[in-house]
């Protein structure tokens, strides 16, 4: 089991990548995870909903990311 520091670091890196991906354009949960895994986030460990969703909520709380409801439930556009 990796240390807490490494875990935190990975979460931080994941956060950056999320912001970067969302900045490119509006997306939704499932898609952003697929993008993460496709663009080599596997280096940090396979990105999964369990880790990504909480981070997205924190970003939303901090105002760095905005969510809206759309017919196909789009989520996450950068400010």
């Amino acid at each position, binding site marked *: 089991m990796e240390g807490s520091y490494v875990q935190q670091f990975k979460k931080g890196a994941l956060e950056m990548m999320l912001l970067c991906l969302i900045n490119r354009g509006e997306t939704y949960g*499932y898609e952003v995870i697929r993008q993460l895994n496709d663009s080599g986030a596997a280096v940090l460990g396979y990105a999964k909903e369990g880790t990504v*969703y*909480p981070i997205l909520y924190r970003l939303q709380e901090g105002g760095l990311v905005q969510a809206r409801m759309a017919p196909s*439930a789009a989520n996450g556009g950068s400010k």
Partner: protein
Amino acid sequence: MEERYLRQVKRALCLPGKRKKEVVRDLREAFASAKENGEPAEAVIERLGSPEDFAGGIHEQLGIDAAAKRRRRDVFVGAMLLLLAAAAWLVLWLSRALRPAENVIGQADAMTSIQVSGSSAVPPLLGLAAAVLVVGGALLLARGLRARRR
């Protein structure tokens, strides 16, 4: 499978009602998207982690101390129940104390058909309810006040 998971997450989450609904809505969406891509609910649950882990992850990211919140709630509800029990016992005591005296009507020359009595079923029921409230309230209070294990 999905509904059960969602219910468990809802229970494990320590957030205001509106936020809880949003999280559950987002999860439903994740399941729906996965389904569109041919993935079963089990696969998504695998990636989400256990309901407790998932909720814990959200609490951690949002800086919420769920355990502390639960303890505070237990203390509050426990105290309220004890107060209710005290109120019930007060009513009980008053009803007994204010019961009419045995000879309130006085002596009559002949048998009368006037009866004066207090209510019959209420006192035992009230007593039982009060006892239940005391036990429940005390248990909750104790659980809430228990010191956090280091």
